[in-house]
């Protein structure tokens, strides 16, 4: 067994195990930290797929940004102390049956479809080529996504600064 296979199984085990901890944990803070390990595992899977720039982006945006944002949201909406960060779980039997069915159907569809695979192109780095594509054929989506980010940030700031204290009882 070569090194790539060992690394693939190690990182998929980390990813899926941490995702299981995230879903089945009773404490929301534990779930957030398990989500961090899941995101790092996904970044490692990107590295195994020769997507170095995307892996760095994943680490910066998800682990450094979205996860901190989720922890902020957790702290700002918690009722006082950390031991009250409970997550209520409902519909555990229908939910697990439905998600198991969805996963099994997806795996069945993936395995039985004949994918038109080609020999992987060996790249040393993707940054140069992706930058060229971003400034070439992807220039319109690039501008649109910049405007979208601007609008999202303005909306988030507007919504979170209009919080008044008069509704609290």
């Amino acid at each position, binding site marked *: 067994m070569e090194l790539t296979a060992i690394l693939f199984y190690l990182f998929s085990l980390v990813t899926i195990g941490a995702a299981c901890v995230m879903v089945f944990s009773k404490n929301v803070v534990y779930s957030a930290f398990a*989500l961090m390990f899941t995101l790092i595992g996904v970044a490692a899977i990107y590295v195994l797929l020769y997507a170095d720039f*995307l892996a760095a982006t994943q680490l910066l945006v998800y682990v450094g940004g979205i996860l901190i944002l989720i922890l902020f949201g957790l702290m700002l*909406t918690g009722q006082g102390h950390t031991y009250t960060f409970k*997550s209520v779980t409902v519909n555990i039997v229908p939910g697990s049956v439905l998600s198991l069915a969805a996963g099994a159907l*997806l795996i069945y569809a993936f395995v039985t479809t004949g994918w038109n695979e080609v020999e992987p192109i060996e790249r040393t780095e993707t940054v140069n080529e992706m930058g060229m594509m971003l400034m070439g054929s992807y220039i319109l989506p690039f501008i649109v996504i910049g405007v*979208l980010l601007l609008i999202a940030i303005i909306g988030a700031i507007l919504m979170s600064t209009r*919080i008044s204290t008069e509704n609290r009882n």
Partner: protein
Amino acid sequence: MESTFIQWLAEPALIHFLIVSAILFALGLMAVITKRNIIMVLMGVELILNSANINFVAFSRFTELSLDGQMIGMFVIIIAAAEAAVALAIVLNVFNRFNTINLDDLNTLKG
């Protein structure tokens, strides 16, 4: 039969990555369905977005969709960042108004 299965296991190809993403999708779906904490539902949505992204990057390596797949994956990450910012602002507003983040207690439509 036995040896071909072991050989299939020993060489990670497209199918292996797709199966990992399918399992992640099922777990994210379960978090969205069964949890009643808004933050947990948001984390489940992030998990589903990540599983879709693994699919894009795997197709970008193993099929003819070469670097275009990684480009779409990057746009997905950016949109996920925007979604998380707006969703957490909404969560803060909901907590301010109703003093709870349990989804079952948010059953009024009048503003």
